[in-house]
């Protein structure tokens, strides 16, 4: 076997670049490179394995499944504009159907142009019922109606769409809190799951999105979308490590089947390839 030796400075710089370019963040990348600088390795594979192990340690959360408590169990999809909430709802609905669950959609984005139409098309494609009001209606009222309808029909899951909102806009975060309160009051806190949908192309701002949404509505999990592009989504490492919010799903395309459960191991292998 080849002797263990230290990494050349140029090699270390290159590794730093590779790590930073995954959107891992500067602090984590530099910390890793410092670790590498003081160790000896016998091969490239060993270096990669070391990095992977170090990053794997930072995934502290378990519970990557969709919860099961409650009938109906209500899943609220939140996140900033354009992150992929509406599309992700369609994907999760399809997954649940395949597992033999009954699903109801709630058109809780009563603000954006054609948001209700967009979700309605997905409902039609999946043959699932949808509860909707007019554009401009109170999103909490839509959510409430959907819960009522699901209870009456004995439906297993209610997936609630919400309007995109930037986390630094107070009034919008307050509106979201109200939707959470109304749903919790109707089905109980344990039956409500809140998922943050983040765009896999985004940079360090995803961490601040997660932190702010977490402060406003305690999040149960994250869906990271658009990882079918060349972006690596490395920012989830700091989200998992510092905020301990589990990433549950990964969106890999625009079709209804383009979603997979999140696995730290698979994710990190893809990150480092």
């Amino acid at each position: 076997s080849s002797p263990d030796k230290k990494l050349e400075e140029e090699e270390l710089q290159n590794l730093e670049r590779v790590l930073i370019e995954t959107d891992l963040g500067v602090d984590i990348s530099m910390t890793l490179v410092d670790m590498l600088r003081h160790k000896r390795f016998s091969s490239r594979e060993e270096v990669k394995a070391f990095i992977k192990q170090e990053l794997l340690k930072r995934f502290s959360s378990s519970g990557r499944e969709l919860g099961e408590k409650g009938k109906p169990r209500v899943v609220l999809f939140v996140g900033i504009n354009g992150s992929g909430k509406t599309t992700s709802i369609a994907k999760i609905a399809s997954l649940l159907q395949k597992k033999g669950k009954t699903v109801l959609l709630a058109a809780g984005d009563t603000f954006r142009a054609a948001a209700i139409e967009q979700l309605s098309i997905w409902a039609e494609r999946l043959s699932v019922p949808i509860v909707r009001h007019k554009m401009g209606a109170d999103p909490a009222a839509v959510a409430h109606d959907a819960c009522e309808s699901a209870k009456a029909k004995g439906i297993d899951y209610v997936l609630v769409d919400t309007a995109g909102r930037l986390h630094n806009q107070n009034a919008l975060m307050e509106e979201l809190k109200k939707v959470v309160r109304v749903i919790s009051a109707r089905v109980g806190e344990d039956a409500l799951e809140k998922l943050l949908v983040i765009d896999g192309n985004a940079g360090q701002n995803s961490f601040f999105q997660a932190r702010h949404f977490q402060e406003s509505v305690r999040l149960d999990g994250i869906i990271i979308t658009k990882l079918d592009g060349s972006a690596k989504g490395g920012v989830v490492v700091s989200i998992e490590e510092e905020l301990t919010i589990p990433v549950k799903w990964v969106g890999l395309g625009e079709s209804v089947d383009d979603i997979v459960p999140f696995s730290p191991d698979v994710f990190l292998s893809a990150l480092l390839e």
Partner: protein
Amino acid sequence: TISEKFQVIFKTLRGHHRISEANITDSLREIRKALLEADVSYTIVRDFIKEVKEKSLGEKVLDLVSPGQMMTKIIYDEMVRFLSMGACELPLDRSFQTLMIVGLQGCGKTTTCAKLAFWFKEKGLRTLLVGADAQRPAAKEQLRTLAGQTDVDFFTLDEEKNPLAIVHAALKKAKDDNLYHRMVVDTAGRLHVDEELMKELTLLSQSARPDHILLTTDAMLGQDSVKTGEAFSRYLNLTGIILTKMDGDARGGAAMSMAAVTGKSVQFVGTGEKISQFEPFYPDRMASRILG
């Protein structure tokens, strides 16, 4: 924040009469870290720091200015220079011009199309909005609704799945009606690694022959901005960039990477979901924002 970092630079350089390689290493490291945290791409940061270093070491420090102040000015000026690369404004003459709006999924293209139409309207130019996204559920409906809210004409072929056919028909309508100064074409979001969809965009631009092709970019785009900019430049003759969701708190480093790699500057920024929340780009304001 960068102002804090600049204070560190001031302290480090205080008492020195000129800027030397030794006494700016720490400062450059701080700036580099700040830019990477602001999502400026790695290779662009490397080039930027190199430029700043060369300019700093070449400076004779004026008696009245401290080396710290000098270096701060060099960093800020160099940032503005990076952001102003390829700067040009959209012309406002009344000849018929076509604009094509392209970009990754969810970055704000459809909304931006309506914003452009509204902006043209305020300048006395009449726009035809064209719904050429035949892929996303209710995309045409979305633009139709926005057009209605803006009191701007909208065109699409509701059952048509081929964007080329829609644009072809739109051009014919614009020519026949002879009412419009601008035609703004919305396109489906796509990944720059999707070769088939990127080729579709090339075909679309060959058929529509737009006068302006604007790459819409989310202000929170991460390190992938270089690859995104390069790919869209390779498949299209981009004429400018539009940065959206600037009402968020993303530092927007992608703007710098995009400008550097496409050679085109940001022309407009979206500052909200309303049609009116749209303004010209100011490199000096952006420089302050990226620097934090």
